[in-house]
C-alpha cells in the first residue's frame, strides 16, 4: 500500500491557493471577453491552476483552450507549458497513458527551446524542462517503477541545482524522500525532506513547506513510532492547507491524522478524521484518496466490530472504487473480508467467489501466509457448504502446494546456511594449505591490476580527448557521444569478462581476487554510468553515486541491510571525473575491506561513509565500521595488501595520506588536498 502517493497530488497548488471563489468568477467572466493574445493565455493558465485542486474536468478544459490558443498565436512556450500541465492533470486522474504522452510532447517542445537558448525566457524554459523531468519521475513513481523514478528525480534535482530552478528541485527532493522511505532508508529520506524544506522556505512556498512537514511527520509516526510528535507536524501542515484553502490538501492531512490516531489506539478520533477524508474526497471526486479513505474506514469498522451491514457497505464501496482505478495492491484484504462476511451470512457462492478473487492478488503481494489461510477457507466452503468436490480438491491442492513451498523455502534457507558455513570452513582450510597456490594467485592479482590501470588509462585519455574536441567544434559533439558510448560499452565488456572468468575458477583465493577486480570495475563503471556531460567539466554527483556503490558492495558480499547497514554522511558534492574515479576506487577498497573482515559469523553492525569539505578547504573522507577491529581480524594483514597499497597509491594522486584511527572497529580518515570540483 502506498498512501503516500497522494502527497504528490498538489504539484503546483500554491499558485492557485490564494484565490477565493470570487476571483474564480471574475476571472471566468473576464476570460470570455478577452481578445486572443498572451494576456488571455495568462488568465487561462491561472484558471486551470485554480481548478486543479477542486475540479479536474474544468482544469483540463482550460488547459486544452491554452493549447488551442497558443497554437493559433504561435506561442510555443505557452504550448509547452500547457502540454506539461495536461500531463499533470492526467497523472492526477490516473490516466497514465495520456499523462506519458503529454509529458513526452512537453519535453520535446522544451528541448527545441533549450537548443536555441533564447535569452529572455531562458529561466522559464529551464524551469519547465526540469519540471517536466520531475513530472516524468512522478509518472514512474505512480506506477511503481521506482528505479526509473529515482533516476528522473535525481536528474531533476541536478538540473534544478544547476539552473537555480527551485520549484522542480524541491518537488523532486520530496518525492525522492518518499521513495527512499519506501526502501526503508530513513536517514536519506529525512535528508531529502530537510533540503526540500529549506528550498521551499527560500521560495516562500507554503504548500511545499506543509508537504515537508507531513513527510517528516510520517517518518516519525509510521517508522519511528513517535505519533504524538507526528500529530504536531500534521497540525502545522493542516493549518497551512486551511490558509491556502486547498481542500485536496486538507483531505490528505485528515487521512494522515486519522492514521496517527489509529496507531495511538484512539479509534474514535481516527474514525472521525477518516470520515472527514472520505467526505472531502467524494466532494472532490478524488478516486485515489477515496480508495485510501474507504480502505481505512473498512479496516476500522472491522476492528470495532461494527454491524455487518455497515461493514459490508464499506467494503463494497472500497472495492468498487479501487477496481475502477485499478489500485489492486491492498485489495486482497478487502476481498477476503467480504468473503468472510458473506460466509457468515450463509451466502457461500458469493463468499467463494470473493476468496477466489483475493488469491491471485495475495500471491502478487507475496503474502503467502495470507494465501494459505485463504485457500483453506475456500476448501472448507467447497467441502462443507457448496458440496463441490472438484473445487474443494483444487483448493486443497493449492493450499498444500503453497504450504509446502513456504515451509520448503524455510528448509531450503536452512540447508543453504549450513552449506555456506561448510563452504567457508573448507575455503579457510584450503587457503592455509595452499600457500603455493596463493603465490600463483598473485600473478593473477597483477594481471587484474594491469587491466584496471589500462581501463583507468583508457578512460582518462578518452575523456581528456573529449574535452578538447568539444571546445573546438560543436559539430564534433556527435563524435564525442560516440566515444563515450564506446567507453561505456568497453567497461561493460570488461565487467562481463571478469564475471565470465570467475565462472571457470575453482581456487578460492583466485576467485576472491577476480571478484575484487569485478567490484573495482563496477565502482568505476557506476561513475561512467552517472556521468553528466552536458557542460565542461565532466561532473559526477557524489551522493547518488555512493548510495549505489554501497548497495552494490552489500550485494557483492551477500550481506543484507539487517546484518550490516551502510550509513552515509555526505555533503552535496559534484566532483570532476578525474577526482571522482580515484575517490570511488578508494571508497570501494575501504568499504569492501570492512564488509569482508569486520563482521564475521553473521556479526551485525554498520559501516559509515562520510565525505565533507573541512574549513581549510580540504576534502575529507572517513570510512568507519563498528566490527571486530584490526586485532581480531587475522586475515586482514596478508590478503588486503593489494587493496591497501591501492588506497595508498590512489591517495597519493589526490595528495592525501590515509590514517587509521584508534578506537573500536576499524576506521580510516583521509584528507585530500589535490581535488577538483565540477
Amino acid at each position, binding site marked *: 500500500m502506498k498512501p503516500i502517493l497522494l502527497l504528490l497530488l498538489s504539484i503546483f497548488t500554491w499558485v492557485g491557493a490564494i484565490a477565493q471563489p470570487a476571483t474564480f468568477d471574475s476571472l471566468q467572466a473576464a476570460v470570455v471577453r478577452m481578445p486572443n493574445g498572451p494576456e488571455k493565455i495568462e488568465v487561462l493558465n491561472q484558471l486551470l491552476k485554480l481548478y486543479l485542486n477542486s475540479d479536474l474536468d474544468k482544469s483540463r478544459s482550460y488547459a486544452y483552450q491554452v493549447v488551442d490558443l497558443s497554437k493559433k498565436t504561435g506561442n510555443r512556450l505557452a504550448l509547452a507549458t500547457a502540454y506539461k500541465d495536461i500531463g499533470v492533470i492526467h497523472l492526477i486522474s490516473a490516466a497514465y497513458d495520456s499523462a506519458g504522452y503529454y509529458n513526452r510532447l512537453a519535453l520535446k517542445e522544451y528541448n527545441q527551446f533549450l537548443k536555441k537558448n533564447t535569452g529572455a525566457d531562458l529561466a522559464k524554459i529551464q524551469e519547465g524542462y526540469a519540471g517536466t523531468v520531475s513530472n516524468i519521475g512522478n509518472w514512474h513513481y505512480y506506477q511503481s517503477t521506482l528505479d526509473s523514478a529515482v533516476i528522473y528525480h535525481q536528474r531533476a534535482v541536478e538540473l534544478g541545482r544547476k539552473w537555480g530552478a527551485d520549484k522542480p528541485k524541491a518537488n523532486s527532493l520530496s518525492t525522492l524522500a518518499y521513495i527512499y522511505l519506501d526502501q526503508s532508508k530513513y536517514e536519506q529520506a529525512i535528508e531529502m525532506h530537510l533540503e526540500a524544506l529549506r528550498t521551499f522556505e527560500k521560495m516562500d512556498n507554503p504548500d511545499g513547506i506543509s508537504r515537508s512537514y507531513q513527510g517528516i511527520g510520517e517518518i516519525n509516526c509510521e517508522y519511528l513510532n513517535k505519533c504524538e510528535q507526528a500529530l504536531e507536524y500534521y497540525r502545522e501542515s493542516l493549518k497551512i492547507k486551511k490558509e491556502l484553502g486547498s481542500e485536496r490538501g486538507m483531505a490528505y492531512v485528515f487521512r494522515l491524522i486519522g492514521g496517527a490516531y489509529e496507531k495511538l489506539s484512539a479509534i474514535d478520533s481516527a474514525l472521525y478524521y477518516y470520515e472527514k477524508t472520505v467526505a472531502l474526497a467524494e466532494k472532490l471526486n478524488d478516486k485515489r484518496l477515496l480508495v485510501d479513505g474507504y480502505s481505512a474506514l473498512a479496516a476500522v469498522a472491522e476492528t470495532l466490530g461494527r454491524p455487518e451491514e455497515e461493514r459490508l457497505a464499506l467494503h463494497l464501496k472500497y472495492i468498487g472504487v479501487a477496481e475502477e482505478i485499478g489500485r489492486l495492491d491492498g485489495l486482497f484484504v478487502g476481498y477476503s473480508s467480504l468473503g468472510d462476511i458473506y460466509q457468515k451470512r450463509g451466502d457461500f457462492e458469493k463468499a467463494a467467489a470473493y476468496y477466489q478473487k483475493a488469491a491471485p492478488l495475495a500471491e502478487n503481494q507475496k503474502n503467502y501466509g495470507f494465501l494459505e489461510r485463504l485457500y483453506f477457507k475456500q476448501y472448507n466452503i467447497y467441502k462443507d457448504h457448496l458440496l463441490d468436490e472438484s473445487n474443494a480438491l483444487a483448493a486443497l491442492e493449492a493450499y498444500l*502446494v503453497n504450504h509446502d513451498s513456504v515451509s520448503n523455502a524455510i528448509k531450503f534457507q536452512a540447508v543453504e546456511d549450513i552449506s555456506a558455513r561448510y563452504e567457508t570452513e573448507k575455503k579457510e582450510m584450503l587457503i592455509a594449505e595452499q600457500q603455493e597456490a596463493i603465490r600463483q594467485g598473485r600473478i593473477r592479482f597483477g594481471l587484474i591490476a594491469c587491466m584496471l590501470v589500462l581501463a583507468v588509462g583508457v578512460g582518462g585519455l578518452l575523456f581528456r580527448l573529449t574535452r578538447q574536441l568539444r571546445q573546438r567544434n560543436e559539430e564534433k559533439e556527435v563524435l564525442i557521444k560516440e566515444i563515450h558510448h564506446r567507453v561505456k560499452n568497453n567497461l561493460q565488456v570488461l*565487467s562481463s569478462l571478469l564475471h565470465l572468468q570467475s565462472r571457470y575458477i575453482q581456487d578460492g583465493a583466485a576467485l576472491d581476487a577476480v571478484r575484487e577486480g569485478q567490484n573495482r570495475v563496477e565502482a568505476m563503471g557506476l561513475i561512467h554510468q552517472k556521468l553528466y556531460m552536458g557542460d565542461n567539466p565532466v561532473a559526477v554527483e557524489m551522493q547518488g553515486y555512493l548510495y549505489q556503490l554501497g548497495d552494490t558492495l552489500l550485494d557483492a558480499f551477500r550481506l543484507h541491510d539487517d546484518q550490516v547497514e551502510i550509513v552515509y554522511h555526505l555533503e552535496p558534492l559534484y566532483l570532476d571525473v578525474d577526482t571522482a574515479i580515484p575517490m570511488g576506487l578508494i571508497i570501494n577498497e575501504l568499504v569492501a575491506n570492512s564488509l569482508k573482515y569486520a563482521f564475521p559469523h553473521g556479526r551485525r553492525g554498520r559501516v559509515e561513509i562520510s565525505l565533507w569539505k573541512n574549513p581549510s578547504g580540504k576534502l575529507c573522507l572517513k570510512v568507519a565500521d563498528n566490527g571486530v577491529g584490526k586485532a581480531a581480524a587475522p586475515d586482514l594483514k596478508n590478503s588486503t595488501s593489494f587493496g591497501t597499497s591501492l588506497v595508498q597509491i590512489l591517495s597519493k594522486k589526490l595528495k592525501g595520506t590515509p590514517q587509521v584511527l584508534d578506537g573500536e572497529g576499524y576506521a580510516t580518515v583521509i584528507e585530500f588536498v589535490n581535488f577538483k570540483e565540477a
Partner: protein
Amino acid sequence: MPMVPLKILLVEDEPLVALDLKLELEQAGHRVATATDAGTALRACGEQVPDLAILNFRYANSMDGMLLAEILQSQYLASVLFITGASWEYMEESAYFYADHSVLYKPFTKLQFRTAMKSALERARK
C-alpha cells in the same frame, strides 16, 4: 517460492556481454534465445515466442532496436528492456525514449541488472 521460468530473447551484438547475461539468466531458471541483430532476432521468434526481449537501441547494419521493439510488442506481446551505452543527454533528445520501456544504462552492475530484470519480468507476467 516457485518462480515461473520465462522465455527471454536477448539481442546483443557484443558477444562477451551476451554470453555473460545469458548464463546469468539461465542460472535464474529462464529459457534464453540469443541473436546479434534484428533479422536473426525475428527468426528466433518463429521458434520460441519471447515473453521478454532485451534489446539495444542500435545494431550495426540492421534494423534499429526501437522498431524491433515495436514489432516484438505488437506481434508477440513481448515486454521490452533496453540496455544502452548511450548517455542521458542523447536519450533525452530522442522523444521515443519516453515510451513505456525500461532502460538500463551501460556500464551496469550485476545488482542493477537483477533489479531491472525483476521489474521487467513482473511486467512481462501481467
